[in-house]
C-alpha cells in the first residue's frame, strides 16, 4: 500500500462481521481474506446467507467490519470512505431505487447529480447510457411502468453514470428472464473490457453465471471463503472423481441412503431437480460422487431395494456445483448430507455459530425432506 497506484482493486484481510440480532448474534463473515486485482471480473459464489451481500456492503462503505481491514484501490473502507465513493458504484438485483413517478431519463439524471455531473453533462451521459443499455424506447416511460428486465437495465445504467473504476453487482440477474439476464451479463462484460483497470465484483448464486462471467471466483459459505481460483482451476479439483447425475422417480431416505452404499463418496440432491411438479410426480436429482465408475453397478443394483426407479442417468462433466458439494459436503440448496470425513477445513466455532442462525431461513429443498 506504499505505492497507491499499485494497490489492488480490493484487499480484504481477516474481515469478520457480526450482526447483533435477537435470539443470537449472527456471524455473517467469519474471517475473510481476498485480493482482487485492477481489471478483474471477480465472482463471489455461494448460497443464500453465505455473507456475500455483507462483504459487498463493507466494500461499498455502507457497513464496517467488526474485525479486520478492507480497502478499495488502496483506500481504507473505514477511514477513506469518501474517496471510495467517488470511484465506485453498485447495483443490486431486484433493486427498486428511485421514484416511480419519474421517467427513465429523469430518474437517471437525478442520480447523475449525486455524482457531481453538471446539469447538461448529466443529460448527455444519461442519453448515451440509455442507448447503450437498450432502453431507447423506454426513455420517457415512467419508471413504475418498466418490466423487471428493463428496470434492471436502467439500474445498471445508473451504476455506470459516474464511470466507476469498480462496480459492485449483488446478484444482478436475480429474478430476470433468460434474455434480460443475458443482456445484463453482456453489458457488464463489455463495459469492463472497454477500459483497462475497470473492475467488477459480482455476487451470484447461479453457478452458470459465475462460470461464464468470472475471471476468478471465490466460493463462499457460512461467512468463509472455501476456495478461490479461475472456474477451470476450481473444476479441476473434482475432475479426479467420477460424478454422475442420477434422476430418480423418488428416493426413500433421501440422498443419505445413497451415501451409505459402498463405493459412494458423496451423494447430494441437486437444486435443478423437478421440485415444483406436484407432490406425487416429484423426481429427485442426485449428484453422485463415486470412488470410480465401477461402483456404479452396485448403486444401480441397490436402487430397487430403496424403492427407486431410474428416470435418467448421465455422467457429469464437473460443474461449479460439484466443486461446492465437494467443498461443503452438501448440495447448494441442501442441508448437510455427507459420508466419510469432511473434505473442507474443520468448521471453527464462528462458522458453527453461523449455522445455528441459518435455521431461521431454511436452506434445505423440499426434495430432501
Amino acid at each position, binding site marked *: 500500500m506504499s505505492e497507491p497506484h499499485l494497490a489492488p482493486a480490493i484487499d480484504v484481510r481477516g474481515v469478520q462481521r457480526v450482526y447483533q440480532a435477537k435470539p443470537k448474534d449472527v456471524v455473517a463473515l467469519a474471517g475473510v481474506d481476498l485480493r482482487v486485482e485492477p481489471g478483474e471480473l471477480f465472482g463471489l459464489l455461494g448460497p443464500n446467507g453465505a455473507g456475500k451481500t455483507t462483504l459487498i456492503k463493507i466494500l461499498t*462503505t*455502507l457497513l464496517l467490519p467488526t474485525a479486520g481491514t478492507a480497502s478499495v484501490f488502496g483506500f481504507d473502507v473505514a477511514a477513506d470512505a469518501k474517496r471510495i465513493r467517488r470511484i465506485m458504484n*453498485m447495483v443490486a438485483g431486484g433493486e427498486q431505487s428511485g421514484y416511480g413517478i*419519474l421517467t427513465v431519463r429523469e430518474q437517471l439524471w437525478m442520480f447523475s*447529480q*449525486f*455524482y*457531481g455531473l453538471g446539469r447538461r453533462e448529466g443529460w448527455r451521459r444519461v442519453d448515451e447510457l440509455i442507448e447503450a443499455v437498450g432502453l431507447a424506447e423506454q426513455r420517457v416511460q415512467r419508471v413504475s411502468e418498466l418490466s423487471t428486465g428493463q428496470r434492471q437495465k436502467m439500474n445498471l445504467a445508473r451504476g455506470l453514470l459516474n*464511470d466507476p473504476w469498480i462496480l459492485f453487482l449483488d446478484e444482478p440477474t436475480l429474478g430476470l428472464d433468460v434474455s434480460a439476464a443475458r443482456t445484463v451479463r453482456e453489458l457488464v462484460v463489455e463495459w469492463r473490457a472497454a*477500459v483497462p483497470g475497470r473492475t467488477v465484483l459480482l455476487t451470484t448464486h447461479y453457478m452458470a453465471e459465475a462460470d461464464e462471467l468470472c475471471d476468478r471466483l471465490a466460493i463462499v459459505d457460512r461467512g468463509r471463503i472455501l476456495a478461490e481460483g479461475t472456474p477451470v482451476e476450481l473444476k479441476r479439483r473434482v475432475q479426479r472423481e467420477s460424478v454422475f447425475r442420477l434422476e430418480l422417480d423418488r428416493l426413500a431416505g433421501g440422498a443419505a441412503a445413497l451415501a451409505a452404499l459402498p463405493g459412494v463418496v458423496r451423494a447430494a440432491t441437486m437444486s435443478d431437480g423437478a421440485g415444483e411438479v406436484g407432490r406425487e410426480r416429484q423426481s429427485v436429482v442426485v449428484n453422485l460422487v463415486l470412488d470410480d465408475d465401477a461402483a456404479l453397478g452396485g448403486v444401480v443394483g441397490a436402487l430397487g431395494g430403496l424403492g427407486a426407479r431410474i428416470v435418467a442417468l448421465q455422467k457429469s462433466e464437473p460443474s461449479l456445483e460439484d466443486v461446492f458439494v465437494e467443498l461443503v459436503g452438501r448440495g447448494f440448496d441442501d442441508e448437510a448430507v455427507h459420508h466419510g470425513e469432511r473434505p473442507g477445513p474443520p468448521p471453527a466455532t464462528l462458522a458453527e455459530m453461523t449455522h445455528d442462525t441459518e435455521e431461521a431461513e431454511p436452506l434445505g429443498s423440499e426434495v430432501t425432506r
Partner: protein
Amino acid sequence: MSALARPAAGTPQADAAWDRRRVFLANLRSVGGRAYPRVHGLFREPSWVLFEILLPFLTTSAFVFVYRALQAPPEYVGFVVLGGAMTAFWLNVIWMMAAQLYWEKDQGNLELYFASPVDMMSVLFGMAVGGLIMSSTRAAVVLAVGAVVYGVTFTVDQWGLLLLVFFLTLAALYGLGMMLSSLFVLWGREAWHLTQLLQEPVYFVSGLNFPVGRLGFLGALAVALIPLAVGLDAMRQLAFAGALGPTGTPPPEIEALILVGMAVTFTWMARVMLRILERLAREKGRLSARWR
C-alpha cells in the same frame, strides 16, 4: 457502444481526489437533483387538482365560515387565510418530510444516497427544497382564495421584514422537517405517533386558525417551540399592522431572531442525527431495507 467505451481519465487514485470546488459543486448539484422529482412529479398525477387546489380551498373556507358564524372580528378571517396558507408547509413537513427518509430506506434509496460521494445533508436539503416548492402552490392558492373570495385585505408597513419572517419561518420549519426525517429512521414506528401528536393540536394551538396571543402566557410558551406558531404570530403582526392591538407576544423583530435560532438549531440537529444514523448503519447494519 460508445457510452460504455468512454475512456476513464487518469487512475482510480487520481479520480478519487476531488478538489474543494468539485466537492462543493457536487453537493450543490445534488440539492437540485433531489429536489427535481418533487417539483416535476407534482403535476403528473391528475389528483394534484384535488390536493393542491380543492382541499386547501375547502378547509380554509370552512374556517372562514366558522369565524363568521362566531361573529369574530373581520381581521380573524385574515388570520385564517394566512394560517391556511402556512398549513400547506406545515403538513408537508410533518407528513412528507418526516416520513421521507424512512420511505427512502424501504425503497433502497437511502443506501444509494449514503454510498454516493455527496454529503447526505445535501440530499436532505434537496428534499426540503423540493417539498417547499411543491407546497408553495398550495399556499399561494389559499392566499389567492382568501384575497379574492373572502376579500381579505392586508395592511403591511414593513414588507421587507414580512418577507424575511416568511423565509425564516420556512427555514425553521424545513430544518425541523430534516431533523424529524432522520429521527423517523432511528425510531421507526414510534415516530408515527409523534407525527400524530404534532398534527392534531397543532392546528389549534400553533395559532394556525387561532391567534397565539389569546392563549395566555403558558399556552403561548408551550407552543412557542413549534416554529410555525412563532412565524405565524410574527407574520400576523406584520400583515395586519395596527389591526391587532396588543397581542401579548414579542414584537416581530424578536420573533424573527427566535426563528433564526430555531432554523440554525434544527438544521444543526438534523446534521447530527444524520451522523448518528450513518454511524448506526455502519456499525449495526441498520440501514438496509431488508433488515429493520
